[in-house]
């Protein structure tokens, strides 16, 4: 029981899908990349473009398929009975529980070994990176020396020389004569490349050969040549076979030309074309810069005209000095003339004539004043005198002695000489003095008659 249960527990039961899946991964991982040879039978082309057939030999057969994309790259037709070598992988188709060979590449049997070697080398070198565009060296625009690695005989070298001579006459060329087929050809080519690289006189190499069979081109499919090209620091152009021929050398080369003459065309620019381009560029340069150059010329001319010789400068300066001096002199003379006029005018105004006239006027005025003064003084004096005379006259008329002339007399008692106006205080015998208009009488009173006032 226990063992039965154990058996039950350890027993692995697959479903069909699981089993198929495991088979599939087993087969597909075990045969991912295989070369198979066999004879085609039951060949059919589906409407989709995929090719279905069986590969068989005496004892076995296997289903095979070539998909449309790969089928299109074939250079020959597949058909039943054809013996082929194919590169492919095993694929399992679960719905049918069948396995089949899925082919990537097919070639006819016979040329197959060479082609196989080619493909193997191509794969290996490609994986190493020898075909990598990053390693491609740029070609010189105009090489100063080209080495032609090719056969010295035949049409190829002749055609290339003709093309090179036509495109760029007098180009410096070196021909490195090598065998391009047969035993030792690959070694010769590799040696020539090494030598040219060592000498370093050329800056471009053309590796060329005319068209031929795959066997004829074998030297260019060798690893030796491929590595020689890769290690050569001088850029290499290949021109091998016809347009459809691809060699390993072509893949490694810095540039692949389809034919030897195409390589020659590519190597150098067309001298006449260059010249024409150069000429047109020159013309456009002249046209573009001609104007500005003319302007510059004009500028220089102007500057030169303005650039005076020092002596001429000196002469000009002297002339200018003379002119200025003359101007100065003229100005000075004008000022002097003006000042002279001014002086004369001032002298005239300084002359004593107006002063004398003024003096005369002043003297006249003074005389008038003087006369006036005198007149006033005298007239005032005169007036005073008249006043005084009037007063004097009036005084004289008022004088008490004026009436004496008319017979009146003044009597005074002596000795007191008091004027008598009445008889009081008098006695006969008293002495009296009588004043007349002219003279005095001294008398004695004889008799006194008292009375009232007369008149």
């Amino acid at each position, binding site marked *: 029981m226990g063992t039965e249960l154990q058996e039950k527990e350890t027993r692995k039961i697959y479903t069909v899908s699981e089993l198929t899946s495991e088979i599939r991964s087993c087969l597909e991982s075990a045969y991912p990349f295989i070369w198979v040879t066999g004879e085609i039978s039951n060949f059919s082309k589906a409407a989709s473009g995929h090719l279905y057939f069986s590969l068989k030999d005496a004892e076995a057969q296997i289903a095979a398929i070539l998909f449309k994309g790969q089928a299109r790259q074939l250079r020959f037709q597949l058909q039943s009975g054809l013996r082929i070598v194919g590169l492919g992988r095993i694929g399992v188709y679960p719905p049918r529980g069948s396995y089949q060979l899925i082919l990537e590449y097919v070639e006819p049997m016979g040329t197959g070994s060479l082609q196989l070697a080619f493909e193997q080398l191509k794969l290996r070198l490609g994986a190493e990176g020898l075909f990598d565009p990053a390693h491609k060296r740029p070609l010189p625009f105009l090489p100063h020396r080209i080495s032609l690695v090719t056969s010295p005989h035949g049409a190829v070298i002749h055609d290339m020389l003709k093309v090179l001579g036509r495109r760029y006459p007098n180009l410096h060329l070196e021909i490195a004569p090598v065998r391009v087929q047969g035993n030792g050809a690959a070694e010769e080519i590799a040696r020539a490349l090494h030598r040219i690289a060592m000498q370093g006189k050329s800056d471009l190499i053309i590796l060329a050969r005319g068209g031929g069979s795959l066997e004829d081109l074998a030297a260019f499919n060798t690893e030796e040549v491929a590595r020689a090209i890769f290690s050569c620091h001088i850029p290499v152009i290949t021109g091998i076979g016809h347009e459809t021929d691809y060699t390993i050398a072509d893949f490694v080369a810095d540039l692949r030309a389809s034919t030897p003459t195409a390589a020659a065309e590519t190597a150098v620019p067309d001298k006449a074309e260059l010249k024409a381009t150069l000429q047109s560029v020159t013309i456009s340069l002249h046209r573009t810069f001609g104007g500005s150059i003319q302007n510059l010329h004009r500028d220089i001319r102007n500057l030169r005209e303005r650039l005076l010789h020092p002596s001429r400068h000196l002469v000009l300066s002297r002339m200018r000095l003379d002119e200025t001096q003359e101007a100065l002199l003229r100005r000075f003379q004008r000022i002097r003339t003006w000042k002279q006029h001014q002086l004369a005018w001032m002298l005239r105004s300084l002359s*004593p*004539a107006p002063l004398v006239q003024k003096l005369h006027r002043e003297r006249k005025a003074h005389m008038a004043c003087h006369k006036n003064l*005198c007149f006033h003084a005298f007239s005032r*004096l005169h007036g005073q005198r008249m006043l*005084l005379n009037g007063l004097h006259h009036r*005084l004289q008329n*008022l004088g008490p002695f004026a009436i004496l002339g008319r017979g009146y007399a*003044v009597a005074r008692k002596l000795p007191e000489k*008091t004027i008598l*106006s009445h008889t009081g205080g008098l006695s006969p015998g008293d002495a009296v003095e009588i004043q007349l208009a002219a003279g005095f009488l001294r008398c004695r009173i004889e008799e006194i008659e008292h009375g009232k006032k007369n008149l």
Partner: protein
Amino acid sequence: MAKKTFEEALAQLQGIVEELEKGDLALEKAIRKFEEGMKLSRYCSDCLDEAEARLTRLTESGEEAPFSFETGPQEEA
């Protein structure tokens, strides 16, 4: 007594004349006034005489120019 000015003397003389012209003075006083007036009149006359004499003297010397001026030769040019 300080010497009278001419004007004072004249005014006094005028006063005396007017006093005498009223005629109501006693003879004695009138005579004294008269004598005083005559003295004043003489004094005034003397003053005038002296003034006239001085004035005459001044104006006589004043006939000449008070100062002289030397004129240049181009005076009338």
